C-alpha cells in the first residue's frame, strides 16, 4: 500500500515538475528557501536582502548589481495563494524610527516574490531578461520532523524519553516526566489526559530552547513552531513510556499513536512535499553565538540538530523518503548570522566553527547532493568596530546600543546607552568550541537595530551589512550571469 502511495506521489511530483520546467522556459523562476532555527535571523535576513535588491544597496561582490546589469527590482505577486505573504513592509517599519526594534520572528511559512529585470552578460543569451525570485521563509524546526517520518510512535517515544534523561536535560524534563509517571498508557483514552501530557511536554521543550540552555534538537518541530495548527488534535500528543507489551485498542497510547500518525501525514509530510521539494536554492541560517554563550553542551546539541537539518538535503536514493519526495536543491549556503556582534578579526574563526559543524555532518553521510558553502554574515549590521585600550592591553571591540536587559560582566543595559563591547576571543582552533572541557569565556550581547543613515537629500542609503552580497552571489549569481 505504501509503495502504491509512493508511486502515486512520485507521478504527481514528476507531472508538476515537468509543468514547472515548461513554465520556467517562458519566465524563469528561482525558489529560494530561507530557514534556520528560532532567532537565527531569518526575518531580518529576508527583509535586508529584499531591501538591498529593491533599493540598490551596496553589494560590491554581487556581480550582477556591481556590474550595473540590474535595471529594476520590484515586489510582485507570489505564486502560491494558500501561503501567507512575508510581511516585508511591517518588518522594515519596525526597524526604523526612535522606537526601532527587531521584527517579530517567523512562526509559519511565508513567501515573498520579487521580479528582477537584468541584462545577461553570458555570451549566448545577451539582452534584457527577467528573473522572478520566490523567497520562501519557514521555521528550521520543521526540518527536524524529517526523521520522524520514518519512525513509529513507539520509536519516537523511546528516543524522546531517552533524550530527556540526558544530563543536559534531566532537570528540565523533571516536570514532564512526573506528569508522564502519573498516566497509565494502557488506560482509557481521555482528551484531558492527552492535553495534560502534551502541555507538559511542550513546556519542557520550550524551557530547553530558552536561554541559558539554548538547546536546539527538540522534535517534533511544530510543538515549538505550531504555525496555524495551534491546539489542533494533531499537535496534542506526547511520547509515553510504553514498555514492551502490546497497546490495547482505545487506550491512551492508542490515541496518541493515531495522533502521531496524523501529525506525520497531515502536518509534516505536506510541508516537505508541497514546499521543501520545490526549492531550488537554500540558505540555512545558524545562530552560533547563542549556543556559544550557553556553553559547549548547547553547541553539541546544535550540531546534532544541524545533522538532522542536513538529512533533509541528502535524502538517499533508496530510502522510503526519497519515494515520497525528491529535493532538487542545487545549492545550500550555511551562514553563521550575527557576525556583527564580533570584531571582523574573529569572523574567520566563526566561519571555521560553522564549517567544522557542517563538515562533520556531511562526513557522516555518504553522498553530497548539493553544492554547499559556509559564510559568516550579518544581514543588517547593528554595530561599528573599535579598538579599546584598557591599561596596557588592546581589545578588538564593537560599538552599538545593547538591547534593554542585556547583561555582561555584571552590567545591565537599558537600551539607550551606547557601549563598546568586548565579547571575548573565539578560539583559534574550531574544535575547542565543541569541547566541553574548553570552558570558553565568551559573552555576546544583542544590540538594537542601527539608526538608518540618510544622505544629504534625505534619501536612505544602502544599509550596512557583512557579506550579504557574497551570500547573494552564491545563491543566485549564476542565474543572473
Amino acid at each position, binding site marked *: 500500500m505504501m509503495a502504491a502511495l509512493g508511486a502515486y506521489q512520485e507521478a504527481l511530483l514528476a507531472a508538476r515538475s515537468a509543468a514547472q520546467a515548461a513554465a520556467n522556459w517562458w519566465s524563469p523562476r528561482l525558489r529560494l528557501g530561507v530557514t534556520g532555527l528560532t532567532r537565527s535571523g531569518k526575518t531580518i535576513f529576508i527583509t535586508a536582502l529584499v531591501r538591498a535588491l529593491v533599493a540598490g544597496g551596496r553589494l560590491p561582490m554581487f556581480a550582477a548589481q556591481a556590474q550595473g546589469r540590474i535595471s529594476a527590482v520590484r515586489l510582485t505577486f507570489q505564486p502560491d495563494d494558500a501561503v501567507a505573504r512575508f510581511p516585508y513592509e511591517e518588518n522594515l517599519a519596525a526597524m526604523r524610527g526612535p522606537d526601532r526594534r527587531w521584527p517579530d520572528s517567523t512562526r509559519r511559512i511565508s513567501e515573498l516574490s520579487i521580479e528582477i529585470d537584468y541584462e545577461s552578460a553570458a555570451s549566448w543569451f545577451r539582452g534584457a531578461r527577467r528573473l522572478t525570485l520566490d523567497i520562501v521563509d519557514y521555521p528550521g524546526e520543521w526540518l527536524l520532523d524529517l526523521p520522524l517520518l520514518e519512525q513509529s510512535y513507539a520509536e519516537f517515544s523511546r528516543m524522546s524519553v531517552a533524550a530527556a534523561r540526558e544530563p543536559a536535560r534531566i532537570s528540565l524534563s523533571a516536570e514532564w516526566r512526573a506528569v508522564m509517571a502519573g498516566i497509565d498508557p494502557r488506560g482509557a483514552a481521555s482528551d484531558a489526559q492527552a492535553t495534560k501530557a502534551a502541555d507538559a511536554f511542550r513546556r519542557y521543550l520550550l524551557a530547553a530552547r530558552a536561554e541559558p540552555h539554548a538547546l536546539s534538537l527538540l522534535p517534533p518541530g511544530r510543538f515549538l513552531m505550531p504555525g496555524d495548527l495551534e491546539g489542533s488534535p494533531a499537535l496534542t500528543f506526547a511520547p509515553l513510556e510504553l514498555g514492551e507489551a502490546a497497546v490495547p485498542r482505545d487506550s491512551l497510547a492508542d490515541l496518541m499513536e493515531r495522533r502521531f500518525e496524523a501529525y506525520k501525514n497531515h502536518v509534516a509530510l505536506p510541508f516537505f512535499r508541497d514546499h521543501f521539494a520545490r526549492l531550488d536554492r537554500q540558505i540555512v541560517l545558524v545562530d552560533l553565538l547563542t549556543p556559544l554563550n550557553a556553553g559547549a553542551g548547547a553547541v553539541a546539541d546544535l550540531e546534532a540538530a544541524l545533522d538532522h537539518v542536513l538529512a533533509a538535503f541528502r535524502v538517499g536514493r533508496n530510502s522510503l523518503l526519497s519515494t515520497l519526495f525528491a529535493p532538487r536543491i542545487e545549492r545550500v549556503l550555511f551562514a553563521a548570522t550575527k557576525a556583527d556582534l564580533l570584531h571582523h578579526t574573529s569572523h574567520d574563526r566563526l566561519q571555521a566553527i560553522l564549517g567544522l559543524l557542517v563538515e562533520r555532518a556531511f562526513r557522516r553521510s555518504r553522498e553530497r547532493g548539493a553544492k554547499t558553502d559556509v559564510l559568516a554574515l550579518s544581514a543588517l549590521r547593528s554595530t*561599528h568596530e573599535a579598538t579599546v585600550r584598557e591599561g596596557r592591553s588592546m581589545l578588538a571591540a564593537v560599538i552599538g546600543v545593547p538591547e534593554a536587559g542585556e547583561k555582561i*560582566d555584571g552590567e545591565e543595559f537599558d537600551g539607550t546607552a551606547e*557601549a563598546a563591547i*568586548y565579547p571575548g576571543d573565539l578560539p583559534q582552533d574550531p574544535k575547542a568550541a565543541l569541547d566541553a572541557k574548553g570552558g570558553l*569565556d565568551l559573552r555576546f550581547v544583542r544590540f538594537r537595530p542601527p539608526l538608518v543613515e540618510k544622505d544629504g537629500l534625505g534619501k536612505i542609503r544602502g544599509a550596512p551589512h557583512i557579506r550579504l552580497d557574497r551570500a547573494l552571489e552564491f545563491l543566485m549569481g549564476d542565474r543572473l550571469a
Partner: protein
Amino acid sequence: MASNRPRAFRLHEAENGNFSLEDKPASRNAVAIAPDRSLESELAETGDPDLSLSPAVGARGGRLSFGNVLAFALSGLALIGLSTAIERGIASLFDQNAWLGGVASALAALAGLALLGLLGREALSIWRQRRITAMRKEATQLRENRDALAARTFVAALANLYAHRPETARARALLAELDRDVLDPADRLAVAERELILPLDIEARRLVAASAQRVSIVTALAPRAVFDVLFVAGQSLWLVRRVSEIYGSRPGFLGFLAIIRRVLSYLAITGGMAVGDSLVQQVLGHGIASRLSAKLGEGVLNGLLTARVGLATIEACRPLPFVAVPAPKLSDVAGALIRKSVAKPKGG
C-alpha cells in the same frame, strides 16, 4: 584578572576620542576607545599614506659597484668643472662691468634653482614608479595573509594614487563608501581592481591596439627600411610613456629610463611565453600576409612587436597584479591587426 574577560565599556565613561596605538596610557586603568579609522580621516590626516615601510622599496639600489663609483666621480668632476667655469666667467664679467656681472650671477642662480627643481621632479617620478612596483608586491601579500586592516589602508593608498584624475571620481567614491564595510581583503582588492583599475586597463589596451595598427600600416607603406625602424622605435617609446602615465607614473627622464628597463626585463621574461601562446597566430598571420606581400608581412611583424612592448608596459606599470580582471593577451590588442592584414589583400 584575566585580560580577555568579556566586558563592556560605556562610551561616556571612557576618555573618548582618537588615540594612536603608540601613545602611552595616562594611567594603568585608563580606558580609551577609538573607532576604527575610516578612509576619510586616513586621507585627511596623512595626505599620502606612507608605504615606505614596505620592504620592497628599499630592496633595490644601495649597493656599491665600480660603475656607480665611476659615474659618481665623473659627475662630481663635471659639476666642479662646470661650477668653477661659471664662477670664473661671472668674476671676469664683474671685472669688466659690475652690472653685467650682477645679471650673470642672477641667471646662474636661476639655473641652479631650475636644476634643483628638475632633480626634485625626477626623484619624485622615480619614487612614484617604485611605489607602484612595491604596491604590486604588497597586494599579492595582502591576498595571502588576510589582514583586513592592511587591505583597507592599501586600497585607500591606491585610491589616493589616482586622486588627481577626475575620471576616477566615481570609483574612488565607491571605495570610500565601502571603507567602513567589513570585506575580506581579497574581495576588497577585487573591487578596487574592477572599479578603479579596469577603466585604466581598457584605456591602455585601446592605446596599445591603436599604436600597433599604426606601426603596421606605416611599415607597410614606408619606402625605406630606415623610416620604419625609426618609426617603430619612436612609437614604442611614446607608447611606454603614455601607458605609464595612464597607470599614474608620470615619469620624468630618469624615471622613464627606469620604466624602459623594467619593460625590457618583462619582455625578456614574457617574450618566450608570448611566442608560446600565440605562435600559431603569429606564424599564420605573418605567413599569410608575407606570402601576399613582403612589405605587408613586415608590417604585421612590427605591429606585433609594438603590441608586445605595450603589453609588457601594462604589466610593468599596473599597481595591482591581474587577479579579478583577466590579463590582456596578444590577440586582444593585435587580433584586429592580423585579421585586417589578412582580410585587406583578399578584398583588394
